[in-house]
């Protein structure tokens, strides 16, 4: 019984996740278009809504070219690692209320009391995908690109981890559900971002996350103008698609984590001011709605930043990471612990 | 009894004072002062001895011993002191030693007139007298040993007097070393005495022997044989006589004093002194007798062919000593001492006469280039004649009485005695032959100064002159003593010595055998003279053709039976070879240095082995690391593996 239910849950979450990934691509192209005063894809389907389907189809049908000088086993393995890592993190994120049915939690695939740590593990494993891809495609640009990308990811991972410590300090537990429960006490006031005093942590987390996913201002390694596409230049069709999906998957995961940790997860901003209607459906759906809204807000933020901010130079990027973010995160920890101890 | 002031130590110390004075300051004193010192002290010493003799004659009871002698060595139970004792035997010896010694001192003042190192000679002479008197006066063996070796030292110094002549030096060493061989025997004897008697003083030993003679004959014989070895070394008997002929390298007065009168007789005196021991060891006595006779005969044969005047006299001394040993050997100690005394007189005289001949002829010692000195040196001639007659044993002279006494004693000494007597008689014949040969060649016939040799030393010979009076006076005195020395007669002499030499010699048996023996001796002497006359009297060629006919025998005798060469090759060369190669190579280089090289080698080897282990190859390091880990693990887990409950038990198990 447990197995069947969990398989169903996984399937549902996966489908939702993948379609979300596809549509984020579309969303991004539309939004960037709008920022650059143009419309973005509109031809396929009403307002271009079917564009992702078509892109997927295109990438799927393209000829899968494998260059000769490539180190084949790792060349094939790399995209797989990247994709699995980005997908794995979803399994740990609880997106709905802690409703239990037959002892099974409906709105989370699995709820571990060290959920946060697993997230960190997955991000650290993710580095291999990029590192191996660059190296195995036996091309100088891709090697350089992959090295820079993995170096960037490793350094920002530090800042990411440290910024979460503030939140953990406040909730005294690593389990994500507990973190949300703490923030649900009285609505927006108790969200970590406002009530919890973790505003700085949120900003550090945001920047670190952008760097982790090689997005926006930190997307030097695979930027077309710099290193001809960085580590996935040699990849074509499906393998390139995997990388692409992995990248957007990471974006969504980051979004979910941010909502869970800083925006109070599936709790409504109003807290208990407006008592939620009593019937089950609303009780279940409302948190879901709030969770999706917050994630959408983060995605919007991503794309907005990508559209507006210029790209960092690599040495600025590294020095920003090590010389500004890391100390800031440490300061944040000290500040929060002092605050908790004194108040 | 009131202790008459005999000043016994003074007799010895006076010559020592002479030695010290001359030795330390002699080089700066004028010659006259040196000679006065050299003569004064021995004279004083002789005066003291004469006074002692006069007191003995006046009824002083002998033996007289110093009361509180200073102790010399006192360790544990062993105690020996500077003990001087005077008894009849010592008195006789002292008279001879100091008397003849003084005369020879007088003589050498003249003889050494123009020699360099004048003071050194007299210092050594006085030193010799000191040691000789100590030897004779000694009350115990150790003190006698002091004199014994001291005399050897003095003879070494005197023989090696001419320091610019290598042969003199070598002769000195040879004398000293041979004496040391003898002293070795003496030393062993002393140890045996200590082992058996716990003391070395004569009186105590004789007291113990008489009190309870626990000494077994075997032990006694051993002791006596050692003593005999010492005597043989000192008195130049058969095995150890080789040093005496070479000792002629020293100046003639030295030969006279040391190698005729006193030192060589020390051996005989020692045997006489320890007669108590010898009486207990008849075997030792026969050995002494046999050695004596053999030496006498052997030396006589060699003396016949000697050409150097002093060598002849040297061999004759050895042979006469042989007679004394024979005397002692047959138990006639007093006869031996009597012969010793008379021999001192005429042999001293012979040497001094020879000295004055050499002095006259300016250093010429080869009798073949002498002759016709009868007229040029009358006094020397006559005194020499007296001596020759005495030594040959003609009737009125001293030699007859003493030699006859010994031969008589030998004759009565059982069957072996008869044989010894026969040999003794033949030796007597030869003695008179070579003495008269010498006599003829030196004094009679024409002077052959320049004929036989290549005339290079022509200028020496031109004025053979008679020696000055100072040299002639001792000659005359000694001649008198040689003539009337024997008149004391053996009986009165033996009686006098009886207390010192134990039981009187065998009572003289019925007169006629005694008479027959003495007549026979005289006849033998006459025969010897006649043969010498035949060969050397008129035609000198007779000697030469006799030599040709008996060429091989002649050559053997001439080369002194090659004894010296035999000794060198048999003893000296092997020792040196063994020392240089045996010990030098084997001992030093292999054993001692070898052990060090072994150590070095081992350490080097270990170093080499370990070096190879640090090869730099990481993989080998890894392997050894693994082995180490495995071993450690086994050691640690031995307990659990073998079911023991703790590591300690496993160790015990393993160790048991």
């Amino acid at each position, binding site marked *: 019984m447990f197995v069947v239910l969990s398989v169903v849950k996984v399937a549902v979450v996966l489908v939702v996740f993948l379609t979300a990934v596809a549509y984020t691509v579309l969303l991004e192209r539309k939004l960037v278009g709008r920022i650059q005063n143009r419309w973005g894809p509109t031809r396929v389907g009403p307002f271009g809504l079917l564009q992702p389907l078509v892109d997927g189809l295109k990438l799927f049908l393209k000829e899968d070219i494998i260059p000769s000088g490539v180190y084949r086993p790792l060349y094939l393995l790399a995209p797989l690692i990247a994709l699995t890592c980005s997908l794995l993190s979803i399994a740990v994120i609880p997106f709905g209320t802690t409703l239990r049915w037959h002892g099974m939690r409906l709105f989370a695939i699995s709820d571990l009391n060290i959920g946060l740590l697993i997230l960190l593990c997955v991000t650290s494993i993710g580095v291999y995908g990029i590192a191996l891809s660059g190296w195995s495609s036996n091309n100088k640009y891709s090697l350089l690109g992959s090295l820079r990308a993995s170096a960037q990811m490793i350094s920002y991972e530090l800042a990411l981890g440290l910024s979460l410590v503030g939140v953990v300090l406040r909730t005294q537990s690593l389990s994500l559900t507990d973190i949300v429960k703490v923030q649900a006490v009285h609505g927006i006031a108790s969200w970590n971002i406002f009530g919890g005093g973790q505003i700085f942590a949120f900003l550090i987390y945001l920047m670190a996350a952008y760097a982790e996913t090689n997005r926006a201002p930190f997307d030097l390694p695979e930027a077309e103008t710099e290193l001809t596409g960085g580590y996935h230049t040699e990849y074509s069709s499906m393998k390139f698609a995997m990388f692409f999906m992995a990248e957007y998957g990471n974006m969504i995961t980051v979004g979910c984590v941010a909502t869970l940790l800083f925006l109070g997860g599936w709790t409504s901003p109003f807290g208990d001011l407006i008592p939620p209607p009593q019937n089950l459906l609303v009780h279940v759906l409302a948190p879901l709605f709030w969770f999706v809204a917050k994630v959408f807000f983060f995605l919007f933020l991503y794309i907005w930043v990508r559209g507006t901010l210029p790209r960092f130079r690599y040495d600025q990027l590294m020095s920003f990471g090590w010389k500004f973010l890391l100390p800031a995160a440490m300061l944040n920890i000290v500040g929060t612990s002092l605050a908790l101890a004194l108040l | 009894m009131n202790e008459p002031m005999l000043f016994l130590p003074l007799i010895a110390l006076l010559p020592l004072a002479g030695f010290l004075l001359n030795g330390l300051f002699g080089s700066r004193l004028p010659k006259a002062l040196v000679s006065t010192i050299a003569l004064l002290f021995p004279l004083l010493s002789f005066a003291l001895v004469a006074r002692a003799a006069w007191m003995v004659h006046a009824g002083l009871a002998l033996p007289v011993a110093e009361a509180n002698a200073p102790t010399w060595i006192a360790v544990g139970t062993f105690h020996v002191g500077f003990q001087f004792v005077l008894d009849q035997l010592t008195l006789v010896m002292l008279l001879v030693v100091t008397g003849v010694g003084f005369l020879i001192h007088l003589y050498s003042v003249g003889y050494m007139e123009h020699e360099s190192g004048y003071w050194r000679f007299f210092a050594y002479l006085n030193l010799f007298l000191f040691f000789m008197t100590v030897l004779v006066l000694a009350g115990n063996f150790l003190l006698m040993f002091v004199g014994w070796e001291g005399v050897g030292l003095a003879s070494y110094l005197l023989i090696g007097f001419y320091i610019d002549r290598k042969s003199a030096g070598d002769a000195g060493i040879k004398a000293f070393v041979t004496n040391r061989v003898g002293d070795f025997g003496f030393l062993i004897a002393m140890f045996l005495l200590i082992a058996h008697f716990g003391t070395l003083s004569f009186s105590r030993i004789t007291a113990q022997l008489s009190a309870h003679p626990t000494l077994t004959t075997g032990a006694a014989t051993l002791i006596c044989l050692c003593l005999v070895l010492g005597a043989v070394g000192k008195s130049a008997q058969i095995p150890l006589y080789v040093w005496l002929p070479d000792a002629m390298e020293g100046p003639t007065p030295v030969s006279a004093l040391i190698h005729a009168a006193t030192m060589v007789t020390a051996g005989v005196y020692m045997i006489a002194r320890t007669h108590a021991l010898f009486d207990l060891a008849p075997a030792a006595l026969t050995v002494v007798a046999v050695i004596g006779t053999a030496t006498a005969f052997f030396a006589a044969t060699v003396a016949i062919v000697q050409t150097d005047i002093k060598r002849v006299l040297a061999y004759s001394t050895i042979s006469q000593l042989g007679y004394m040993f024979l005397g002692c050997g047959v138990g006639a100690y007093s006869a031996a001492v009597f012969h010793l005394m008379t021999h001192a007189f005429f042999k001293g005289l012979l040497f001094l006469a020879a000295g004055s001949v050499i002095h006259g002829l300016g250093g010429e010692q080869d009798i073949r280039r002498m002759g016709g000195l009868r007229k040029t040196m009358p006094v020397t001639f006559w005194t020499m004649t007296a001596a020759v007659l005495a030594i040959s044993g003609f009737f009125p002279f001293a030699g007859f009485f003493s030699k006859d006494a010994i031969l008589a004693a030998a004759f009565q000494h059982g069957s072996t005695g008869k044989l010894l007597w026969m040999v003794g008689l033949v030796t007597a014949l030869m003695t008179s032959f070579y003495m008269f040969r010498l006599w003829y060649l030196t004094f009679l016939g024409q002077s052959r100064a320049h004929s036989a040799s290549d005339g290079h030393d022509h200028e020496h010979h031109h004025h053979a002159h008679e020696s000055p009076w100072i040299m002639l006076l001792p000659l005359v005195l000694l001649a008198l003593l040689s003539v009337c020395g024997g008149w004391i007669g053996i009986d009165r002499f033996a009686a006098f010595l009886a207390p010192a030499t134990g039981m009187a010699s065998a009572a003289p048996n019925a007169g006629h055998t005694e008479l027959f023996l003495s007549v026979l001796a005289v006849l033998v002497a006459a025969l010897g003279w006649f043969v010498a006359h035949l060969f050397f009297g008129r035609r000198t060629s007779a000697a030469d053709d006799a030599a040709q006919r008996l060429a091989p025998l002649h050559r053997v005798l001439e080369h002194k039976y090659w004894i010296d060469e035999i000794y060198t090759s048999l003893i000296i060369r092997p020792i040196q070879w063994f020392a240089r190669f045996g010990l030098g190579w084997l001992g030093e280089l292999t054993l001692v240095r070898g052990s060090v090289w072994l150590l070095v080698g081992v350490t080097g080897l270990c170093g080499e082995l370990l070096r190879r282990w640090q*090869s*730099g*190859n*990481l*993989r080998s390091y*890894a*392997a050894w690391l*693994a082995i180490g*880990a495995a071993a450690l693990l086994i050691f640690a887990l031995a307990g659990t593996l073998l079911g023991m409950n703790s590591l300690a038990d496993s160790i015990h198990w393993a160790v048991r």
Partner: protein
Amino acid sequence: MNTPVPADWYLLLSAALFTLGVIGFLIKRSLITVFMSIELMLNAVNLSFVTFAHEWHAVKGQIFVFFVMMVAAAEAAVGLAIIISIFRVRGTLTVDQIDRMKL
């Protein structure tokens, strides 16, 4: 469903891993691989630590593993730095050619 596993299987596994680590340490020719097999050995030991920690309910066992990790991290950092400098100077990493103390 929850069939228990005897503890010494874990130990056997750690022993096996350790031995494989030692073998790697012996036969591998590239310096980095040797270095990796050392890491493997360390992990094997960590496993036995955790097993014993579980067995005797002693948290200290795990703490010790924690420290082992720290040290392993430090060691890896310095080791790799050395390997890089060796490579820069020698141009090769094969163990047999690196046999001079002087770089």
